[in-house]
């Protein structure tokens, strides 16, 4: 989920390389719907600039809808040791953080690590969609 369709485009292609099926969304509302209607293995979320909701708040809502879904934040707004991101990681609200711009290797590493941490590897990897 990212408000920029081109970010969705890039991440979709990276994750397809892993054999994952993606659902894309460009706002919080459709992302939440995607999380409810699809059994997601993992959610990649932009953290800022969403028209309707703050990224970390959205992470909480997705986790409330499906507690088994690990969430990874992809953001250009926050930096890695940002207090808000550190707190979210510590609380288990999110399971990984990817800083824009990212290397594909980094995305794959973070996604795999988040999946194993959530022991949800059996589920197919999906990414919320609506674009």
């Amino acid at each position, binding site marked *: 989920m990212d408000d920029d369709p081109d970010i969705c*485009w890039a991440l979709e292609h990276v994750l397809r390389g892993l054999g994952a099926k993606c659902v894309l969304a*460009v706002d919080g509302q459709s992302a939440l719907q995607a999380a409810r209607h699809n059994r997601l293995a993992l959610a990649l979320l932009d953290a800022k600039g969403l028209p309707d909701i703050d990224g970390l708040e959205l992470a909480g809502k997705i986790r409330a809808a499906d507690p088994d879904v690990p969430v990874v934040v992809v*953001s250009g707004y926050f930096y890695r040791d940002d207090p808000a991101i550190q707190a979210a990681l510590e609380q288990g609200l999110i399971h990984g953080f990817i800083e824009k*711009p990212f290397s594909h290797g980094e995305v794959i590493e973070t996604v795999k690590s988040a999946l194993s941490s959530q022991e949800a590897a059996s589920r197919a990897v999906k990414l919320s969609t609506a674009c």
Partner: protein
Amino acid sequence: MWIYDLRTLSFLAVNDAAVERYGYSREEFLAMTVRQLHLRAERSALLDGVLKSPVSSAQERTWRHVRKDGTVIYVEVARSAVDFAGGSAYLVIANDVSEGKRSELLYRMLMDTIPSSVLLLDEDLRVVLANRNFLDKSRRTNGVTAGKRLAEVFPEVILAEMGLEQQIRNVFTSSHATAGQRLTYRAPGVPIRVYYYSIVPVNWGGQVDHVLFLMDDVTEQTRMGEEIRRMEGRLASVVESASDIVVSTDIQGNIFTWNKAAQKITGYSLEELKGRSFLDYCDESGAPGVRRLLSSGASRESSGRIESNLKTKDGRFRPVSWVFSPMTDDAARTVGFVVVGRDLTEQRKFELQILEAQKLAALGVMARGIAHEIRTPLAISSSAAQFLMEGNLTPEFYRECAEKVHSGIRKASTIIENLLRFAHPSAEKNKTPVDLLRVMREALTLIENQAKVQNIEVRTHFPPEPCQVLGVPSLLEQVFINLLLNAINAMPSGGTIEVFAERTAGEVLARVTDTGEGISPEDFDKIFDPFYTKSPPGKGTGLGLSICYSIVDQHRGSIGVDSQKGEGSTFTVKLPLLFPTEKDSGEPPESSRSGRG
């Protein structure tokens, strides 16, 4: 007159005058002794001794005798020894002096009633008389005072220091009273007392043979005076030690007093500017206000406040907040002003610090905004480049990746360009006369397609004649493109955009109204801030409105917003007309419906 027996003291003969004066009959007299005439208290052995003592010559003495009715008379007595019927006897001539004695008593009483110390002095500077007040104050008795020389009555030190004796002698020779002078006198065993004394000649037939030395005890008054001085001193020190500037002026504003704080802040001492006009020490921006307060203050009761810079001795100015209060006399007339000023230098410093802190905070918000906006297209380019490096791509994907690399870089460049424009929007020299209506129509053409896609109808209300302004057409066009795009973005599910232009006195008013989501009142202040955005997906950098603001400002215009949450927003741009005409007084604009919607 009577004759009494020297041995028995019995009366031997009395004349008619004695009978008349004393009230006793002749027979009663002849049955009495001389002793019985005297006041009971004076009937002593001494009296008997005196009465019996032989005298060779006439002796006079005043006695107190009691008449038959019990009243006392003062009698001067002269005795002479006589033979009477072969025996020794005294012939007594008694003279009733009661009348004179009473006057003396009255005089004594008066002297003692006077609430001042009075000494009557003769030419030898001896005390002829000292009144009760003097004796009490000096803790002396009449015995050690009356008849004594002044030097025995007053301490030598006082006499010498004050030159009292000389002063008294001068009064004897000049026969003029001295004016009051101060004398501090401490009698043994009493606290110091302060007197005002004067020396008054007692004139008797053109001859001064006595002087009155009058002393008024002013110890209490002196103490009160000192109390008042102490109080005044305390008030003065309050003013002097105040950390605020306290100045008093006369009614014209000429400086009368100037406290230490004023001296410390300005470097001027009171001596340097006493009598100078307070206005001379205000800077040009503050002087008119101060002048107004000084002239209107005379008729006002309340105090006036003003901020004005105060000139210092080294030629600089310090910001001061002043309070002018009229000073009134007992008749409630304004006689001057009390001007209290607080040095605002520290406060201004603090305000600057806050402003710096606010700027830093704003910079932080801005940095995050820039990071987010630029890192996103960078991430796209970077990602696309990584796909390209992987190789083995379909020609379509290869092309798609190359396009993403290109568009990402372009997006990032645009953001940076906008930032530069925001930071340095200067285009002063590129300004030309331009018809704002034409600029607006071009902007409308550019958004026409997008509006159609989003099912938005666009209506224009333009006046028939051109609205010439001085400006940079491309920048002005950007203002309207941004406003129109905002309007479109505010109506994702369609609506109406109305664009007005109107000439008013000296100005052209351009309005863009949408029927979109509207803006919360709490966001009114922020919408023109850079990177403040609530833009829909993929749109808006948060710079659009701040760039509009910057451009309009650069064209000496203004931009404002009016909005109702849920009902839409109206942005109004006002720009100065280049050629304002007489008839630009608010004619209703021509209403037309654009077919572009």
